[in-house]
């Protein structure tokens, strides 16, 4: 018997698990795959928190300022490598080199120095996949007109096998290499090769480098006479991957158990209480009982909600999701109503019936992308909702 079982191992589920395990609870996380964090850049978007807290039914409004703030602060205590503040937006570079607003960011991504420099050196590793040096250069020139942008192409011996094969070097290949002992040695050589550029007057942008959670990389960089700024990358990306690893390691170090690769097949209910989940293991089902269950199955994208032409269905408990009247908008990049699909809850995150507002399951909490009435693309608060609802559920287990 567990104190809490969390279904879904993405940002919200893992944070809920960490908080509950830290409070001494016995926690199991069941996750169908590795969650979507490796698709993300590792940047946590909080959105315009003050506005969203006043937006009717928004998860921020449901949870209130104290929870949103505490969750962001809690995340930063767990990961001091993350900078930012829920009230002050940070700026990071997109994979195409334009700055964009963000909430909490790995410190290496901070673009502050770019606004103050007159020279930007853009490092361009030869053969890197999904990095377009000329596009990035022109975007940087637009965003930082006071600076000249020097493109610095370079080659690394360790990637000779890639060059020979004609295989593109992915951002993750790069990121992993720079974190190894030999990668760090090579990196020192790369910094040396910049001497002729008078780099002490410049800011260096280095795509493919991910220093988050790497003590040795941070040490190497702290001794440099210039700032190094990392970039976010297209998925799958190192920033998200290391955040996932970091969360999993914290969770396990606190005694949590993570079962990846199997989904929940069905649940057993007694009245308004869930007491058991049946997991689709190999060969046969496994049963797990708990006092509290947390649903963090990631909405439509995560497979938590299945949408057909006729209806939308929540896949674990069979809860009726909130479905907006018009699902889509013909403007492709415009606001899409279906994004607000999700399970409606009370302010304790327990699922409720839309009409009667009656609580449907008393010991179940809904978190992250499964919540109704928010849109991560328009409101840019995906990370924030996951942190706030995850932290809150972790407190309740």
């Amino acid at each position, binding site marked *: 018997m567990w104190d809490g079982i969390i279904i879904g191992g993405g940002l919200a589920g893992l944070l809920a698990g960490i908080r509950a395990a830290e409070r001494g609870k016995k926690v199991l996380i069941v996750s*169908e795959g*590795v969650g979507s964090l490796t698709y993300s850049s590792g940047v946590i978007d909080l959105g315009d928190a003050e506005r969203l807290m006043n937006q009717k039914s928004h998860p921020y409004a449901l949870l209130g300022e104290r929870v949103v703030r505490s969750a962001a602060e809690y995340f930063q205590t767990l990961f001091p490598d993350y900078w930012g503040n829920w009230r002050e937006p940070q700026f990071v570079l997109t994979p195409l080199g334009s700055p964009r607003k963000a909430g909490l960011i790995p410190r290496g991504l901070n673009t502050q120095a770019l606004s103050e420099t007159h020279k930007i050196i853009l490092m361009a590793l030869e053969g890197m996949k999904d990095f377009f040096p000329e596009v990035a250069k022109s975007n940087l020139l637009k965003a930082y007109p006071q600076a000249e942008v020097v493109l610095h192409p370079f080659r690394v011996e360790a990637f000779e096998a890639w060059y020979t*094969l004609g295989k593109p070097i992915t951002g993750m290949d790069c990121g992993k290499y720079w974190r190894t002992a030999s990668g760090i040695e090579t990196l020192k050589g790369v910094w040396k090769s910049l001497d002729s550029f008078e780099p002490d007057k410049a800011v260096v942008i280095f795509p493919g480098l991910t220093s988050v959670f790497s003590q040795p990389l941070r040490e190497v960089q702290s001794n440099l006479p210039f700032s190094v700024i990392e970039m976010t990358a297209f998925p799958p990306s190192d920033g998200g991957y290391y955040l996932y690893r970091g969360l*999993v390691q914290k969770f396990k170090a606190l005694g949590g158990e993570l*079962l990846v690769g199997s989904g929940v097949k069905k649940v057993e209910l007694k009245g308004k209480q869930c007491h058991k989940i049946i997991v689709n293991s*190999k060969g046969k089902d496994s049963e797990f009982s708990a006092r509290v269950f947390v649903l963090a199955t990631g909405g439509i994208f995560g497979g938590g909600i299945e949408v057909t032409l006729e209806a939308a269905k929540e896949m674990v408990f069979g809860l009726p999701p909130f479905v907006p009247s018009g699902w889509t908008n013909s403007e492709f990049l415009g606001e899409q109503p279906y994004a607000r699909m999700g399970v409606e809850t009370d302010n304790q995150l327990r699922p409720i019936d839309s009409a009667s507002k009656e609580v449907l399951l008393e010991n179940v909490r809904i978190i992250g992308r499964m919540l109704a009435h928010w849109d991560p693309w328009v409101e840019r608060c995906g990370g924030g909702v996951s942190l706030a609802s995850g932290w809150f559920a972790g407190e309740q287990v």
Partner: protein
Amino acid sequence: MNKLDSVKNLDACIKCSACTSQCPVAMVQPLFSGPKSVGPDAERFRLEGIDIDPKCLSYCSNCKTCEVTCPSGVKITEIILRAREKASLAAQKSGTTRLQVRDLVLGRAEYLGRLGTIWPGLTNGLLKVYLVRVLMEKILGISRRAPLPPYQAKFKGIRNNKLVPNHRLSKAVVFFPGCFINYNDSLTGQAVIKVLEHNGYDVIMPNFHCCGVPLQANGKFNEARGNAKKNLALMNPYLQSGVPVITGCTSCGLALKEEYPNLEVSGSELIGRQAYDLFEFLWELQEGGGLKQDFQEIPVSLGYHAPCHLKAQGIGTPSVRLLRLIPGVRVSDLDTGCCGLSGSYGYKQEKYDIARQIGEPLFQRVQEGVRIGEFQSMATECGGCQVQIEHGSGIATKHPVWVFMQAYGLSPEFL
């Protein structure tokens, strides 16, 4: 899986690359384009009769990390293994004799084991001679640096293999020891039996064959199915009486749960449901109040490595749960990826370095954990992982059942 289901499963791939980002081989070997590319991507072409770079298939170590990772439930390893089966049938005429002999040797841990355990002292002595290992590398392509586990006297199982009467079958289990216990670690086999007997179970052990996983990994798919059928025939009378089959090896366990149900012979419809990992079984006892709790307090701190084929079973880590019930025991679940060996993969001359590189983060984590006093030694269920972790880190690594032996007062101490 029938053809239509396979195609549907293939179409479930959304090309997100999550599998490739987690693949232990792709992380260290650029020649391997990764599970997505070799699996679902190339499969579309194979279905049209176009084989793209079939050599690339051999880099897959069959660890199944991709299948565990995939958020869309695509059977990536299965796609790769089936493609390998087809490619190996086609290449059988053209393949070099040396590698064919190696596939024969590495695929047949069982026959080697039988030979090796006739006179273990002599075999082990020979395997320690550097020249012998050089010759094995030259002739068979088996890396001279790879950690071949020493042979022990063959595991005899239960002393007189007593017959369990029908009325007692409800408190009986069948034990499927696997080749590692049979030929390299008979003491652990005895320990499994003692722990089960301590919990009131009669242990039945028919004379099983190799489960078939090494055969399959070395391209001998028909032989693997042959072994599976023989084993199922031996289990079948017990399966029909509802007796569970317990494995101490996580790869045998996965085969019993995942491969055996696909055979069209009697018992295959039951084996998936009745096969248990040892600790999965003990945990079920614990949940039902049937696990003996007469644990002595033992001051043991362990690092735990979850074998890939345990992760692939989708049962979590029941051994860690159970170890934490024993007073005095501290366990750190390291979760630092694959050890790299993947059964016979890391023994191959051209794969030794890949295996070593895959395991490096784990070895470093193990050494670091011991250095800072976080734990004293390592535990993991898989014999291959045990050998590889000891080889890579120099830290003693044992099957977790030994902690239970000590806690139950059945053996003087763990390690």
